[in-house]
């Protein structure tokens, strides 16, 4: 089991013991790992029911956690996210595993690189994309302590080290007017390696909704070129950058998982390389864009 997933199960078991507000709803994913508890409800393989039940628990004052693979947590019960939770203004913490292509051998049915774009299309959601298990730990605790709607996207991909909390953290400063490269979640290590010999500013974000628009403007300074590297559907946050820089000329290169049927299995590394999201692929794209 991957580090983020295992930490999530540990924290969830502890939260059930320590916080009477917390309730957990699963649909046959993570059921045994979380274990039996009076406030852990596994509804069988019924993902729409899972979100509806979570909304019902929220209606009664609980802080529900719902959990599954990305497509089964976001895509299948999407209208329940929109209406049962969103339109009814009920809070929940949705925690996914699988990310864009962790389930490589499982194929398209178990992959959902469009998940963040879907959740981001709904108003009022906070979306976290941690790049390290310690970041996932902090963001999960933060979400549990609130009462809003949070989507926490866990992944097998991880950065070499955690980054301390911040809306947008600048990890490498370029010269004034240098291009800004924004790494989202687990793309950071590859972004740092791919740009190590370039005069660019490298910034890191894990919370993509709400998007840190003002912080991005500040980090770009007098520059005009932005490279956005996302571990999911390419361009998911391109519109946010367009809004952030709406009053100034700029160029944007948005890297991520292409919007295409990708009929391959294999390993995560192979998928990352095929999507141009490994170090070599990012370096190549940046070279073409910035020269």
């Amino acid at each position, binding site marked *: 089991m991957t580090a983020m997933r295992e930490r999530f199960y540990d924290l969830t078991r502890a939260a059930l013991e320590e916080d009477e507000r917390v309730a957990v709803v699963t649909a046959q994913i993570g059921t045994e790992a979380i274990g039996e508890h009076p406030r852990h409800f596994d509804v069988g393989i019924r993902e729409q029911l899972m979100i509806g039940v979570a909304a019902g628990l929220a209606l009664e004052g609980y802080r529900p956690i719902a959990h599954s693979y990305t497509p089964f947590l976001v895509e299948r019960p999407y209208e329940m996210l929109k209406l049962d939770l969103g339109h009814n203004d009920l809070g929940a913490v949705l925690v996914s595993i699988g990310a864009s292509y962790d389930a490589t051998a499982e*194929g398209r049915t178990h992959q959902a690189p469009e998940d963040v774009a879907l959740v981001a299309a709904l108003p009022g959601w906070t979306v976290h994309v941690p790049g390290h298990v310690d970041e996932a730990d902090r963001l999960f605790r933060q979400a549990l302590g609130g009462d809003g709607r949070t989507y926490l996207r866990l992944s097998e991909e991880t950065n070499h080290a955690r980054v301390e909390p911040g809306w947008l953290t600048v990890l490498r400063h370029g010269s004034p007017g240098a291009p800004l490269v924004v790494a989202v979640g687990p793309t950071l290590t590859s972004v740092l390696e791919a740009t190590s010999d370039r005069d660019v500013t490298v910034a890191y974000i894990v919370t993509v909704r709400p998007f840190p628009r003002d912080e991005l403007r500040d980090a770009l300074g007098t520059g005009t070129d932005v490279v956005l590297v996302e571990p999911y559907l390419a361009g998911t946050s391109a519109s946010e950058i367009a809004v952030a820089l709406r009053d100034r000329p700029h160029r944007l290169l948005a890297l991520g998982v292409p919007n295409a049927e990708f009929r391959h299995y294999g390993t995560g590394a*192979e998928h990352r390389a095929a999507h141009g999201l490994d170090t070599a692929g990012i370096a190549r794209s940046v070279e073409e864009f910035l020269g």
Partner: protein
Amino acid sequence: MRMATTTTLGYDDLPPLLTRLTGDEKHDRSSFSTLDVLWVLYDRVLGEDDRFILSKGHGPAAYYAVLAAKGLLPTELLDDLGAFDSPLGHHPDRILVPGAEFSSGSLGHGLAVAAGSALTGRRVFCLLGDAELDEGSNWEAVQYAGRVGLSSLTAIVIDNDSSFHGWPVAGSVAGKADDARPEDRGAFGTAGGIERRFTLEGWAALRVDGRDHEQLEAALMPDPAGERPRCIVAKVEKK
């Protein structure tokens, strides 16, 4: 059904094909809940104009082995299951897998598609799992097919007792299969819940031993006089 160019292998040839897929030397057939249903379908039942939809796309090694044995899938493809450029993933993709007629892996999609295909008059067989029937989408298809009398549609449900909350059984207070009285249990284990649900919706339903090829053949052979969709519950070992 996409027809084979040659048919060279038999049921007893399946274990080495499964070994090529999984790498395991020995195979207990209980590890392959769908194996015997798939074999009987492809060996005895499916005609050239019939369509087969594997809704239960999980663990497709048995499916790939049967397709290979019947000459629909080149056997050399069995050696690279799950590799980057292999057409064989852990769930079947109809665009990649010769012989596969529907891409599946997310549960609860196949029966609706099978119903759509059957509306044209085509004879369609759809294989599901008992836990897959948890998904509510199945019941939209079950209700619709029953109401309109979609007699060219056959659903085959592999019952290996894997539905987490079980099925309502007569005599059970809690509604779970394990709570049923012995007299309410069928010949092959806890019985009745799945069949009763389909019957209630207007289907003809029958439970058979999912390892008995003669029973399976008798149940699956088309009934030209039938006026209702059919549900065949194939009981196998508990998961």
